[in-house]
């Protein structure tokens, strides 16, 4: 090993604390980039492969009852390469050992297996024998959650007929990567299952012999879906078509899409921040090293080392830090990716092990890490290379301070000399002070961005469960029923209050903008399910008007008083023009609301209901479930507090992990920035501080200058951190908003104060570590050396 390389290792050894502080920040960037890019690639590639192999359809449509003969016409639509009709329906299930009412989505399997599209992948057992109409296969997560084995039985209420079904196998399907039941907020594999049975059995159960009510189509590559959707809508219209849609509106795929968007967002927002800070820290530390090693550089040059060799020598020092950081990042990233894979496995049901980060992602993140530190070190290394040996051997000129206007203001304040030293130092190196402050501001922002979600979710929970949806449960009907059913519902065991609600699928249209939604209606004065305006007042809907959620209004580009077309997909399938009478903020789903009487008048029918909202005597819950399982008209029951609890538990668990990660990140950034800045200050000011000690200043008084300057920078960083944090929070609420849900921007003082406490605490701890070095300063040695 050459002498200069030995010097490199010695330098690195001497700088190890600073090197670790920088490496940790760099490692964060590498780890997050590795995890998010790796997971994104893995998820999207797996999805593509799964969809392709199991022929996930491109366009889907539901109808009331269409004749099988229509399939020939659908298959002939331009661009459609394959189409498959199915029978689909919902049923309440009575599962052994489960008191609550489970709901099953029933799908038919064609007589000739395998299906052309949305091919279920057999996980265990076999497919049902078409001759044995009681045989079914169920989705694997449902079987697993309920402990079902091959040969287990359960009963289902199929349109009033109680049927005993036998599980002969479990499957996974590209259509149900994310399985969510009607009205649920999160997957509940115990109480919601997908059940495939033979076409014969399904036709008999749902009275669909010779007919279908669900069709999937695959399109030739490059074919636009919209013309196909229009044509399918036209063909299905006479048969109660409910509007065709493509993959982007397919619920399972939409959830996957939103997850992939989040991962991409994570890869784009966070890692650049870390790389930026790591680069800045490297540049700061390397700059100082080169100032300190000035005479050594002069000596090396005088001996005959070339400019390039000197430049490379200092780049290598930064390179060592980079290698260290990248290795740490890879390790942490691999662990993080594994943890996230576990999290994904809870929500997404893919058939194969897909959470594997490919080697090129490691290589790419490593390169980015090394490039960042090299860029950070480049300026300092070039400066070293450019130093003329004769000049380098001279001590550097003392830093120049000048009287500025700000300086005069400082003098007028009659501050103590130590405070003047602090303020002048900030002004003397404004860029450095600014960047240090910015680094800490980003740490504050990181905590704000993570913790605001807690308050946002509290707001969502309060709004969704305590303000608007106050019912204990919802009873879902398979088809609309006359409002008289409300009386029957009131007579069910344990029901205290019952209110009617109606849903009508419709397409809202304004110019070329359309959206398929369910229009909701309820009687004025309903107390259980309400819509609130932004002041929290309950809204009643005026006849002739429609109330839209903000996201829906934004999508259609309409505001208060604008007229939109509503094309109903049921009943007489009429199109009416209505005025937007109110726009409200909603966090779940895309809401559209009309007056109950007005909606039924439009349908020219006596009032009907699709769901009944009820409050319950909890002690009679079991009896209610038993009754529901025996009532054929009811296709399911949604217990709101089960929903709420599931939502809260899942979210809280995820939030805990996320908060811990972000606060950890903030602490790492703070330590990295503060520790290095304080070390550099100490190194630059050792002589000053020793002078003060000799003049009779106590340790505390001298530390005040070091701690005071760092903490002043940290305090200045706070408001900027809050601003950046609020900005990131806004970006996040926008990024996370989809048709499925919205996150409100709730910024409470506690969010900001928590962030400030974390960062100021970590900053103080870091600077106190440096203070210990100050205490150990050898006064005499420092004073006797030439600067």
């Amino acid at each position, binding site marked *: 090993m050459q002498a200069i390389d030995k010097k490199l290792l010695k330098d690195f050894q001497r700088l190890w604390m600073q090197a670790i502080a920088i490496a940790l920040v760099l490692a964060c960037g590498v780890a997050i980039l590795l995890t998010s890019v790796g997971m994104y690639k893995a998820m999207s590639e797996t999805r593509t492969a799964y969809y392709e192999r199991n022929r996930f359809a491109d366009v889907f449509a539901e109808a009331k009852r269409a004749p099988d003969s229509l399939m020939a016409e659908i298959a002939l639509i331009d661009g459609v390469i394959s189409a498959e009709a199915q029978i689909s329906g919902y049923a309440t299930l009575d599962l052994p050992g489960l008191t609550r009412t489970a709901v099953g989505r029933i799908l038919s399997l064609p007589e000739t297996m395998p299906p052309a599209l949305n091919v279920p992948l057999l996980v265990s057992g076999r497919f049902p024998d078409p001759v044995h109409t009681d045989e079914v296969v169920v989705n694997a997560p449902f079987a697993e959650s309920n402990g079902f084995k091959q040969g287990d039985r359960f009963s289902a209420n199929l349109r009033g007929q109680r049927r005993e079904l036998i599980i002969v196998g479990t499957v996974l399907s590209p259509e149900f990567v994310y399985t969510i039941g009607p009205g649920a907020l999160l997957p509940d594999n115990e109480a919601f299952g997908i059940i495939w049975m033979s076409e014969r059995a399904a036709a008999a159960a749902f009275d669909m012999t010779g007919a279908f009510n669900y069709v999937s189509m695959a399109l030739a590559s490059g074919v636009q879906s919209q013309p196909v959707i229009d044509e399918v809508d036209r063909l299905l219209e006479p048969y109660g078509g409910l509007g065709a849609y493509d993959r982007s509106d397919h619920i399972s795929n939409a959830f996957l899409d939103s997850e992939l968007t989040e991962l991409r967002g994570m890869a784009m927002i966070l890692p650049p921040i870390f790389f930026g800070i790591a680069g800045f820290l490297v540049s700061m530390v390397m700059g100082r090293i080169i100032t300190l090693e000035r005479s050594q550089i002069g000596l090396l040059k005088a001996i005959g080392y070339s400019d390039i060799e000197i430049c490379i020598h200092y780049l290598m020092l930064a390179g060592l830090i980079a290698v260290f950081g990248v290795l740490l990042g890879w390790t942490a990233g691999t662990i993080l990716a594994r943890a996230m894979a576990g999290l994904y496995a809870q929500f997404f049901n893919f058939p194969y092990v897909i959470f594997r980060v490919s080697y090129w992602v490691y290589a790419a993140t490593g390169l980015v890490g090394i490039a960042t530190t090299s860029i950070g070190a480049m300026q300092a290394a070039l400066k070293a290379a450019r130093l003329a040996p004769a000049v380098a051997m001279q001590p550097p000129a*003392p830093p120049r301070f000048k009287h500025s206007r700000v300086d005069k203001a400082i003098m007028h304040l009659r501050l103590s000399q130590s405070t003047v030293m602090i303020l002048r130092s900030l002004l003397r190196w404004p860029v450095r002070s600014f960047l240090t402050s910015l680094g800490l501001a980003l740490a504050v922002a990181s905590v704000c961005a993570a913790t605001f979600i807690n308050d946002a979710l509290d707001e969502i929970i309060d709004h969704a469960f305590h303000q608007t949806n106050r019912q204990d449960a919802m009873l879902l009907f398979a088809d609309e029923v006359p409002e008289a059913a409300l009386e029957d519902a009131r007579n069910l065991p344990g029901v205290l209050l019952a209110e009617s609600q109606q849903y009508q699928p419709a397409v809202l249209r304004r110019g070329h903008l359309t959206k398929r939604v369910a229009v909701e209606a309820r009687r004025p004065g309903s107390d259980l399910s309400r819509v609130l305006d932004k002041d929290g007042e309950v809204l009643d809907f005026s006849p002739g008007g429609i109330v839209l959620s903000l996201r829906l209004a934004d999508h259609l580009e309409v505001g208060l008083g604008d007229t939109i077309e509503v094309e109903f997909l049921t009943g007489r399938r009429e199109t009416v023009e209505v005025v937007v009478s109110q726009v409200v903020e909603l966090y779940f789903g895309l809401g559209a609301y009309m007056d109950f009487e007005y909606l039924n008048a439009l349908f020219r029918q006596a009032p009907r209901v699709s769901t009944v909202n009820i409050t319950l005597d909890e002690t009679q819950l079991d009896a209610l479930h038993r009754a529901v399982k025996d009532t054929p008209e009811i296709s399911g029951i949604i217990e709101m507090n089960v929903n709420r609890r599931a939502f809260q538990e899942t979210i809280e668990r995820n939030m805990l992990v996320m908060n811990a990660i972000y606060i950890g990140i903030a602490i790492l950034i703070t330590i990295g920035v503060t520790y290095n800045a304080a070390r550099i200050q100490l190194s630059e000011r050792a*002589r000053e501080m020793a002078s003060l000690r000799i003049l009779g200043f*106590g340790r505390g008084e001298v530390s005040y200058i070091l701690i005071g300057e760092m903490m002043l920078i940290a305090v200045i960083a706070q408001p900027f951190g809050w601003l950046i944090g609020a900005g990131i929070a806004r970006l996040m609420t926008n990024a996370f908003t989809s048709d499925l849900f919205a996150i409100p921007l709730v910024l409470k003082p506690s969010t900001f104060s928590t962030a400030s406490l974390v960062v100021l605490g970590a900053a103080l701890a870091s600077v106190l570590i440096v203070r210990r070095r100050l205490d150990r300063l050898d006064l005499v040695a420092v*004073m006797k050396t030439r600067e």
Partner: protein
Amino acid sequence: MAEIIFRTQGVTKVYDTGQVKVHALAGVDLKLFEAELTVLLGPSGSGKSTLLNILGGLDHVTDGRVWFKDTELTNMSDRGLTRYRRDHVGFVFQFYNLVPSLTARENVQLVTDVAPDPMPAEEALELVGLGSRMNHFPSEMSGGEQQRVAIARAIAKRPQILLCDEPTGALDSTTGVQVLEVLNDINERIGTTTVVITHNAEIQRMAHRVIFFQDGKISEVRVNEHRIAPSEIVW
């Protein structure tokens, strides 16, 4: 005879670097007198600076005892030594050790802010002949001027003792003499006991008392019957 201000008894100082033990002082018995200007002379490594640091409360002895008037410094705590430096001692070093971010006046105020009975910073700067350059930053002054600010800073607290470690070491002859004049002037006008370490044998001629060092011991103490003015010193 003047009162004794410093007294040492068998002072030794050993620096233990792990592999070798360096005996910087090997049994020094010394008396310094109030209001005198004493010059310590001797080759590098002879123990002058070590002694000065011990007298100034910057270092502890390995063995022996040290008194400042009636106060024993030998085993004084770190806090006690800080207090002692703050109240009684002024230091001047070869490298001026000014705070670059403070003006001349503010550098002096560093001391006047914490000392119990200081003179105004302006007065201290007038004493060293820098009344007109009070608002200049160190980077705007010559070496001699910077050293004079350092002296002003040291005397502003009206210290009983002024310890100077090679105060002219970094200066040319003309500026060096200016600095020596300031030291002499202060010694005469305020009566500050002054100890000056130097390599420059010429400087001994302005002292009341000259102490020669050799191998960590005092080899000779000489009292000058005839002192010369700093302006007569040339090197």
